[in-house]
């Protein structure tokens, strides 16, 4: 009995033969994958069951939503990679607005953030304005943008850019201000020029915070996109609203599904870029690997 126990402990505690590290890495990745997607799958199954039991017209089963989703967006001819015409008329305009607004907001946010963060006088001067302006929920400004810019793309892109600006701006200011003094002293000792200090020290130092701002702003951009499209005649946001008003619940849910997938993909892409650019940051915080 005691001998048996000791064998057991040694088996669980310290394996006699070190397992192949590549196999363990692959197993761990498989496990990670199962955990990540298992929960989502579980949620989907739960939705399906509840919807079948409820039989409510407002909550159709997920399989029907997915069916409709494919039908609306992915049932096109093979020469168009199975994309339907609707992709061109609704998804593409939404993407243009999203990237246009996000891009403008991000560039403005970073440029202004650097200027404010590096220049104390300018910072003190504009900071009260920033804190007032960023506190305004962008949807509240929709009517004003509407009056000033009409209902076209200019209005939507501007509104998204406005909303995106603040998280990027505040994070950039914070990031630029958190540059190590010793790094700047080191730059002075080795006589770095202004441009070199900026591009090789200030921007890299601020990049982890800037990326945090980019991630938040991406989520904000998607929200404002949908809101701005509710007064529109095209786009995914418009599709969702118009489907709901026409009691086409499957279409509505299919649109929501598109938004969810879009947000997920964009965030994953950004996270990928972030992990490449700021790999040093994670490494230096975790210490010796």
């Amino acid at each position, binding site marked *: 009995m005691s001998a048996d126990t000791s064998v057991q402990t040694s088996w669980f505690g310290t394996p006699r033969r070190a397992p192949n590290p590549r196999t363990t890495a692959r197993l761990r990745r498989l496990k990670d994958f199962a955990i990540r997607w298992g929960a989502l799958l579980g949620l989907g199954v739960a939705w399906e069951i509840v919807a079948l039991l409820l039989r409510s017209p407002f909550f159709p089963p997920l399989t029907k939503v997915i069916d409709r989703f494919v039908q609306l967006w992915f049932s096109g001819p093979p020469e168009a990679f199975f994309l339907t015409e609707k992709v061109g008329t609704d998804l593409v305009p939404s993407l243009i607005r999203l990237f246009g607004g996000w891009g403008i907001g991000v560039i403005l946010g970073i440029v202004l953030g650097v200027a404010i963060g590096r220049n104390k006088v300018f910072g003190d001067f504009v900071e009260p304005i920033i804190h007032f302006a960023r506190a305004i929920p962008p949807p509240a400004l929709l009517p004003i943008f509407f009056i000033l810019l009409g209902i076209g793309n200019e209005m939507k892109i501007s509104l998204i850019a406005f909303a995106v600006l603040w998280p990027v701006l505040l994070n950039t200011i914070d990031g630029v201000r958190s540059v*190590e003094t*010793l*790094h700047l*002293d*080191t730059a*002075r*000792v*080795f*006589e770095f020029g202004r441009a070199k200090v900026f591009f*090789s*020290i200030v921007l*890299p130092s601020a*990049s982890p915070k800037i990326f945090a701002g980019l991630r938040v702003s991406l989520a904000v951009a998607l929200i404002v996109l949908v809101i701005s499209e509710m007064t529109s005649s095209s786009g995914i946001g418009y599709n969702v609203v118009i489907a709901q008003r026409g009691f086409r619940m499957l279409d509505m849910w299919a649109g929501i599904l598109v938004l969810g997938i879009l947000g997920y993909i964009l965030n994953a892409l950004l996270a990928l870029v972030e992990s490449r650019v700021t790999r*040093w*940051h994670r*490494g*230096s915080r975790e*210490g*010796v*690997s």
Partner: protein
Amino acid sequence: MTVATKDLLVIEGLGHVYEGRTRHEAIGRLDFTVPEGAFVSIVGPSGCGKTTMLRCLSGLMKPTRGTVLLEGEPVDGVPRDLALVFQDYSRSLFPWRTVAGNIAFVLPRSMEKAERQSRIDEVLDAVGLTGSADKYPWQLSGGMQQRVAIARALAYRPKILLMDEPFASVDAQTRAELEDLMLQVRDQFGMTILFVTHDIDESVYLADQVLVLSKSPSTIVAKLDVDLPRPRDQVATREDSDFVRLRSDIARMIREQSQIRK
């Protein structure tokens, strides 16, 4: 040591006062010279304004009084021929650049690729980090990180190297290794070194001359020539009777200094 050499760094009447809500006189009056090729240590009780002094000498900070001359030229801003190695290597190295990248960072952009590479190889070899060129600083131990900082300073080819308690945050074993490394690179590169430390043994072990500072407002209490034979040896030098006498003298002076009430 008796060969007549010209003075590389000349400090005359240096003093610094921090103005502010509470006026603090960090440096009283300092006059000393660092001859070309010499290894000068500065040692003093804690809070003796060592860091302030180094910042004034290196041109990072403008002193309230006095002049600093490097090769006869007044120091105004950090001079090209001077490099500084900080105590806090982890915040002086750039974590987003590899070891080789950190060194290449201080080389002029106009430098040719082959020359750049040979310069990097040379200094990495000098500090014993040949295999670590592609690692990031945070993947290295503390002692190795400070070696990278030293290599970076060497690659810059300054005439004088100022060091601000460079080995204060490494363990004793590593510290001894780094001390010997400094003596070795000094010979290899013919460098003039001004070395600030709070470690009395270290100041004697490394230097040709030790300057003992008072508490702030700091002045120079003593200038002691160290005529111990070179090459120095971690065991033999430290048991030399001259070494023991010097370190005791300095320890006594520093103890007297720290007992003085202001």
